């Protein structure tokens, strides 16, 4: 009798250890989400406060929401000009990084020549150095090329530091594409570049997408490089726009918060829309034909 009683019960309830394990997973994820969301929410709410309020009660809800912090920024010409500058830098960086690393990855993955691995390893050394470490030499180089105060002074170093990682990702993807497809393309009438253009690139779309997303976010968020290279504030991207609220005698923290919130909105939206590319692009490579 007891058997017939416990059996349906068991079917409905998973064993206790699974419940505990699942609960543990949720706890960790919730904690992580809070750690990430905390500062963002603080910034968004901070944008609705006065500087005084921010000092006295940094984390609470604003007593009276000061929407003019946001509307003021959106209404200003500066914001839109800086948005345009940011887009120019993002577009330039992404286009150049993707096109050059795709060609590089093609050479390193599909063509055979002496010293290929050595040269490729040399390329990947670039992964060791974040742009922050190399600011001084980068600045000197940019000055030698007379690129101070030009968009290219920001774009080219970003491209240079983006290429190693992008090439690494794309090369892995290109290598996973079966060599019989390459043979078929040659017999169908492609040359090397034809194969690259008609077969390899379309098949590597997930990886290309991932690189576009990563490079977009990196170049959108870049702060120090434009600060160093662009002295003319009409060329400043959005990240540098925060400085306009830092006066000689004080900082309007409410506006800074509002500005930061507006700055991250496009990046977050872009990420939400494109995150599936990142996941498939970085983990994929599976091609079923």
């Amino acid at each position: 009798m007891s058997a017939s009683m416990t059996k349906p019960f068991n079917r409905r309830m998973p064993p206790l250890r699974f419940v505990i394990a699942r609960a543990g997973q949720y706890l960790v994820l919730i904690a992580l989400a809070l750690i990430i969301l905390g500062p963002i929410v603080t910034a968004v709410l901070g944008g609705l406060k006065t500087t005084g309020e921010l000092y006295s009660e940094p984390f609470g809800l604003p007593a009276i929401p000061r929407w003019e912090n946001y509307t003021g920024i959106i209404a200003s010409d500066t914001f839109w000009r800086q948005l345009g500058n940011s887009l120019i830098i993002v577009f330039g960086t992404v286009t150049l990084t993707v096109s050059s690393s795709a060609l590089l990855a093609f050479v390193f993955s599909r063509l055979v020549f002496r010293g290929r691995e050595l040269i490729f390893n040399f390329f990947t050394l670039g992964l060791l150095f974040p742009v922050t470490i190399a600011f001084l030499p980068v600045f000197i180089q940019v000055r030698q090329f007379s690129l101070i105060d030009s968009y290219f002074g920001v774009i080219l170093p970003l491209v240079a530091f983006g290429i190693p990682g992008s090439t690494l990702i794309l090369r892995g993807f290109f290598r996973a594409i079966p060599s019989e497809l390459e043979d078929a393309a040659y017999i169908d009438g492609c040359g090397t570049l034809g194969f690259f253009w008609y077969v390899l690139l379309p098949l590597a779309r997930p990886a290309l997408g991932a690189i576009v997303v990563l490079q977009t976010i990196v170049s959108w968020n870049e702060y120090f490089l434009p600060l160093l290279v662009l002295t003319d504030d009409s060329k400043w991207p959005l990240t540098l726009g925060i400085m306009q609220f830092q006066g000689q005698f004080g900082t309007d923290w409410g506006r800074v918060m509002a500005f930061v919130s507006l700055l991250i909105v496009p990046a977050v939206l872009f990420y939400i829309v494109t995150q599936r590319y990142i996941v498939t692009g970085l983990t994929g490579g599976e091609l079923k034909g």
Partner: protein
Amino acid sequence: MASISFKHVWKRYAGNTVAVKDLNIEVADKEFLVLVGPSGCGKSTTLRMLAGLEEISDGEIWIGDRVVNNVAPKDRDIAMVFQSYALYPHMTVFDNMAFGLRLRKTPKQVIEQRVREAAENLGISHLLDRRPRQLSGGQRQRVAVGRAIVRDPAVFLMDEPLSNLDAKLRVEARSFISKLHQRLGTTFVYVTHDQVEAMTMGTRIAVMSAGELQQIDTPFNLYHNPRNLFVAGFIGSPSMNFFDAKVVQQDGGRISLEIVGHMLPIPAAIAEPFKSHIGKRVTFGIRPEDIHDQSYLPGGITPSMIEANVDVVEQMGNEMILYLEENGKTFVARTDPRTSAAIGHRLGLAFNMDNIHVFDVDTELSLAYEYKQNKAQKAVTA
């Protein structure tokens, strides 16, 4: 339409690995040549050199009336079907088939017409809008063939195109490709490791081993007059039985073979080529179907009697496969299905001495090869 010839073709890889050794093959126009051999024998490399996907280390390859050593694959007027089919996953079936024509700047209407026509012939018209991953193995195989057909090439190359199909589809695809060859009347070069495919499809078969051409001939001749030990063992299933033997001349001048303690007289009509080896050790070969149960002897053969122990019996219905043992030597026979063989018992057997094969121990060449070739030649001319 084109003939093909390999003239002293070599393929060497770095580190002195030789994949193909001094290959000479002539393929006539409209012929269906099968390259067959165990894996690593150089047959795929040979095909890839013909396609232009591998460089030729030495020698010349001709397609039609020109040397193609330095001609790019796309300019060789060939089409190829790959083992994995190599369909472009990001294109529809239509685009897969049209791709080669588009690259050659064929007018749009012509492409449309040729692709539809080929699809019609292959029974894949309803699949033109699908992507390769939505197709079954057999359908993909047809698309791969379709992609080759629309180009209307002078030579068709196929690299193990059936090995990814299941057994039933493979049989269908075999006759489908044979029919295709008859309909198109184009030269085919087909690579396989499967001797059944080779025997059923090829007008001629080139058997390769360790980078060397062993023999090139019609399926019938390969089977009945193998040039050497390798071809004899490779073609036929179950494969030919080999015995260590000795050629002896008995009293009265009769030439016989001494195997596993038995003396098998050779019919005088075919004994001529063995005279040079009297007193020498040789390898004796006999096909399983040439070993009969004494109780069910077919007429018109020259039997030699021998007894052996029965190890395993496989009743197939139309025939019986027997695994036998005599004096420590095991061999296989295909006998009449009515044979009353019981495991562990001794069975009286008859070797059909008209169809024996004898090979030199050192060179592994068939002693009677030239003799039989000449005889066949005479029969044809007479």
